[in-house]
């Protein structure tokens, strides 16, 4: 065969087109990576300061007076440095530990937000004298930045230095437990019925189309549904874990049904035929053979659905879970807030120090989501079999 110049030109053109296409792909990928990198760097840089919190070393005098007016227990010069939130819990501590009465204690007390921001080199409203005092105390080792345990052990607060993520973390876990308990059995059973039992007719087709549509419905609509059905009709109290869990459950349900159906459909028919041919009933076939084989896929879909739900805020806005709720729920009927709602609330606060708390909250939420997604990927790779 002759390789004439026209042929060579065509070849060159083909290779050029191929290189160009590869170039586009790499550009796309690189853009995504740059955005991701910028996003993560920004979040991490913003979040890091929130990992530390300023503390002052004080000598506290427990007496009759400080039991009523906690600020009476500290030296007057320190009065402006110690967080009012810290002082507020002193009376309770004294009630719980009566033996404290009449003693003095050297302790690290939570500093005010202003001091905290000053130590972190951020904008603050400390006066010249207060700044000088803070500098002297740092030099003397009586003022320091320590790991911010409070952030992970307390709930929300109107005082930035007191605000923590714990309540919303517990709230999220409770809501997720309910979501799972509600959506998983219902979703799997629906999928099993549709895939293994339901006859193929107009009605089931209609149901199928509707389920697929439900998965595409904007999440805020599910909030309205939850408000109308669970709160207004069934009388579930607003802002509660129960209301949140049920609403999230309804929202996750279509995702679970769809992924469970896909997982069931991936089980080859020969398994079903084998089981039925040896006299298994349909339910035995499903429970002993098909469902166990589909389970990894079902779980993967469920976890991904839950990872979506854990980051969802809009529906909770409607049912009153985006609110100032400082306490962690203890039962399913307690009012609660969840991680994304907490982040949303903080993001709207005017104080500068909430910015880093918001960023740290986002990191915690992302960690939770990435962990869930990684679990899903692991399950899929570990248990997916090929026929």
């Amino acid at each position, binding site marked *: 065969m002759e390789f004439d110049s026209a042929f060579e030109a065509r070849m060159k053109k083909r290779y050029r087109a191929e290189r160009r296409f590869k170039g586009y792909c790499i550009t796309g990928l690189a853009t995504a990576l740059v955005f991701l990198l910028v996003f993560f760097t920004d979040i991490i840089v913003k979040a890091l300061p929130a990992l530390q919190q300023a503390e002052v070393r004080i000598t506290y005098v427990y007496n009759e007076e400080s039991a009523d007016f906690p600020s009476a227990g500290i030296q007057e010069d320190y009065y402006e440095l110690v967080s009012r939130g810290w002082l507020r819990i002193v009376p309770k501590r004294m009630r719980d530990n009566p033996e404290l009465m009449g003693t003095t204690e050297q302790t690290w007390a939570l500093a005010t937000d202003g001091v905290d921001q000053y130590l972190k080199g951020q904008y603050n409203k400390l006066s010249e004298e207060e700044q000088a005092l803070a500098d002297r105390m740092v030099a003397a080792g009586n003022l320091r930045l320590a790991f911010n345990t409070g952030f992970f052990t307390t709930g929300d607060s109107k005082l930035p230095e007191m605000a923590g993520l714990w309540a919303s973390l517990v709230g999220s876990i409770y809501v997720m437990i309910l979501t799972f308990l509600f959506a998983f059995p219902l979703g799997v059973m629906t999928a099993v019925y549709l895939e293994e039992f339901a006859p*193929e007719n107009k009605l089931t087709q209609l149901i199928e189309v509707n389920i697929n549509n439900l998965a595409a419905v904007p999440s805020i609509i599910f909030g309205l549904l939850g408000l109308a059905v669970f709160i207004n009709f069934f009388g579930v109290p607003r802002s509660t874990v129960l209301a949140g869990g049920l609403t999230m459950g309804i929202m996750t349900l279509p995702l679970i049904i769809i992924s469970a159906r896909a997982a069931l459909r991936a089980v080859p028919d020969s398994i079903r*035929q*084998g*089981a039925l*041919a*040896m*006299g*298994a009933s349909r339910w035995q076939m499903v429970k002993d*053979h098909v469902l166990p084989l589909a389970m990894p896929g079902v779980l993967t879909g469920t976890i991904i659905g839950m990872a979506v739900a854990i980051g969802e805020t809009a529906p909770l806005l409607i049912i009153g879970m985006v609110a100032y709720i400082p306490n962690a729920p203890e039962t399913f009927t307690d009012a609660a807030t969840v991680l994304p709602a907490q982040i949303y609330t903080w993001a709207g606060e005017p104080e500068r120090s909430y910015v880093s708390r918001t960023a740290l909250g986002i990191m915690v939420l992302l960690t939770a989501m990435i962990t869930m997604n990684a679990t899903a990927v692991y399950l899929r790779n570990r248990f997916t079999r090929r026929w």
Partner: protein
Amino acid sequence: MNAQTSESRTIEAEPGLKPGMLQTQTTAKTEEQLQADKAQPIKARTRGLKLWYGDTQVLFDVDIDILQNRVTAFIGPSGCGKSTLLRCFNRMNDLVDNVRIEGGVEVDGQDINDPSLDVVLLRSRIGMVFQHPNPFPKSIYENIAYAPRIHGLVNGRREMDDLVERSLRRAGLWDEVADRLDTPGTALSGGQQQRLCIARAIAVGPELILMDEPASALDPIATAKIEDLITELRDNYTIAIVTHNLQQAARVADYTAFMYMGELVEYNDTNTLFTNPREKRTEDYATGRYG
């Protein structure tokens, strides 16, 4: 028993052999044996069986008697309805949407399309082996033990162990898997898997075993093992087998049915069907003119 006492001869020695006709050894039945088979009970039969998938008719007035403790083979070109007919005997066609059946199918004289009949019970009495081995993705042991367990056929672990061993021995698989009963059945070779499926089918002591091209996915050695197995099982079970392999039909089947486009064209003892067919279509198929 009959197979051992009957004389074997090559088809070439058979009068009426046409050139190009099946070049294989078959076990011709003697006149007495054929006479004796007339007294053999009928395990299953169809009368005027018609079947439609949607609007397409797939089976046309099929009448067939399947004799107890005999191997009956179904041959015919692809798509002629062999599998469909076989699946009528354990109502596996129920799984297909839009299927319509007319006419009678009887097993042990009982109409199996009777709405009051418990199809689960029916299937527990009839074993089925599929074209592609389909062991459950569970241990070898569990593959065999599953059906006896759901039917409540055994009490206790010891009885189950015995049953598993017996079934595997009958299927000629015991020696190969005895030391690894807890490995997945899907990890066996294709031929072993198919014998596992046969062991699985016979574990519940079915009266009738339906085999749909059980050896078509296997190499000649594995095929030979399956065929030997079928010949052995014949004494205790009734076997209906679909095959594309005419030699195989000739080797294992006592009776053979030739199907064409949904009709049962000819049904006779295997030797007669191959060597002295009544119908031109049978002869054309057996000599490889179509199919």
